């Protein structure tokens, strides 16, 4: 039996004025998957994300989350999102890692409600899950870019979403720490069972960790398992990127 479809994108097309940004894009993400959505800059990745998050309405096609069409979807607490701009915050802001992660519960708690012992524990668990436990009392501005990104992921997972969407999360992460960052995402996916949708322009590193890959450049050029993607020849990828490309695989 196949697992539940967390996200389903069917024949989605989107255009700004006269320019087509997405053309007939179809793919789905099943529960427990770790999908890497790759594509060069300007390939429509961000537009597709905005459509998935319900911020833009595609002119054609349907998107559903957890089996519900996006226009009727109300359970947004099941979806976590870490935006590309997350770590462009005011680094002088006096907030500890704990306080930032706890703020991820604000909407779920609602007005006039305070954190209970159980929720406080959930905050610590989220911080531990991203490997930041020993920094929880530190001001977020004092951390490195990669550590800050982990904190924002903790903020997104503290409300226990089933699907976590990450937009270019390794931007601003030190090259040496990218691998351990992906390991952490792998942990979230395997241990906590969070379905991940990771958007990136970096094809090289991503293919080692994800279970599925989708290549987007207006059209969807490839959608399948990561090992099938690895077998693609360079010239297939060059076609998709529009210029010659050689994928570097990291050996660790």
């Amino acid at each position, binding site marked *: 039996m196949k697992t539940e479809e967390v996200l389903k994108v069917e024949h989605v097309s989107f255009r700004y004025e006269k320019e087509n940004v997405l053309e007939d894009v179809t793919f789905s993400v099943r529960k427990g998957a770790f999908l890497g959505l790759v594509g060069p800059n300007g390939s429509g990745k961000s537009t597709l994300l905005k459509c998935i998050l319900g911020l833009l309405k595609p002119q054609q096609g349907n998107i559903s989350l957890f089996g519900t069409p996006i226009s009727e979807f109300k359970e947004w607490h099941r979806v976590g*999102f870490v935006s590309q701009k997350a770590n462009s*915050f005011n680094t002088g*802001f006096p907030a*500890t890692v704990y*306080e*930032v992660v706890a703020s991820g519960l*604000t909407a779920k708690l609602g007005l006039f409600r*305070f954190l209970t012992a159980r929720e406080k524990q959930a905050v610590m668990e989220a911080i531990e899950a991203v490997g930041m436990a020993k920094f929880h009392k530190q*001001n977020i501005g004092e951390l490195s870019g990669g550590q800050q990104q982990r904190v924002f992921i903790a903020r997104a997972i503290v409300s226990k979403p089933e699907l976590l969407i990450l937009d270019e999360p390794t931007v601003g992460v030190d090259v040496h720490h990218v691998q351990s960052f992906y390991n952490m995402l792998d942990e979230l996916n395997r241990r906590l069972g969070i379905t991940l949708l990771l958007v990136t322009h970096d094809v090289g590193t991503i293919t080692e960790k994800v279970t599925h890959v989708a290549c987007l450049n207006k059209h969807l050029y490839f959608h399948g398992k990561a090992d099938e993607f690895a077998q693609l020849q360079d010239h297939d990828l060059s076609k998709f990127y529009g210029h010659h490309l050689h994928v570097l695989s990291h050996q660790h």
Partner: protein
Amino acid sequence: MVEAMFQYEFLRNAFLAGVLIGLVAPLLGVFIVVRRLSLIADALSHVTLAGIAASLLIEKKFGTFVGWNPLYMGMGFSVAGSLFIEKLRSVYKYYQELAIPIILSGGIGLSVIFISLANGFNTDLFSYLFGSVSAVSRQDVWIIFGIACAVIMAIGLLYKELFLLSFDEEYAVASGIRAKTIHFVFIVLVALVIAASMRIVGILLVSSLMTLPVAASIRIAKGFKQAIVYSVLLGELAVIAGLFMSYELDLAPGGTIVMLSVLILLITILWKKWRRG
């Protein structure tokens, strides 16, 4: 001053009002400073001045509102000014700080017109400009007490929303926080606190009580809650010590409190530098 406080009611009033303001001004100030809106307090204090000038003008020219506390009209103007600022901030989405000089110059312009229409006031206006220990009435203390209660309650209840809006407004809005309503409540509170503070520190100096203790505290605080606690403690220190000094040395309380805040800020910066080695 302690013995004198038992003797003279006006000193007791000044002290109570000072302690209340020393608490609520930095409390709101933390949220203002981290959102980079420090100058909003300045703009609103000038609008408050216009309200007070209007009230005094009406009293002088028409004989109405005699005995009416000018603070009320000051508050009314201040709240109206705060709403204008919010409106202007949404009109100039990409130049949000423009709202502040617009309201500030509007406020001071109106004040000057009212003052000239009245052909000047007596020394009364002077106490609003620079603060005065003797000007605080029992009624003022009650008004300030009411405002302080409202501020503490609102901050307590809306703390997590205000924190998130200050730290990451885009995320807050995306996650469904009612940003507009919360902004509205917050800015009205700021307007009220500004109107309330001017009896002690005066209109020209009121913003300093909202920003200087916070500026010192964010140098040394770990986390937001600690920043609030330190801001309030440093604010109280400046107000209480400032009131004592101004009484003993016969100085204007507003100026003394502000200069003490500056001194505290300098000490914090030096201390932090020295600790880092």
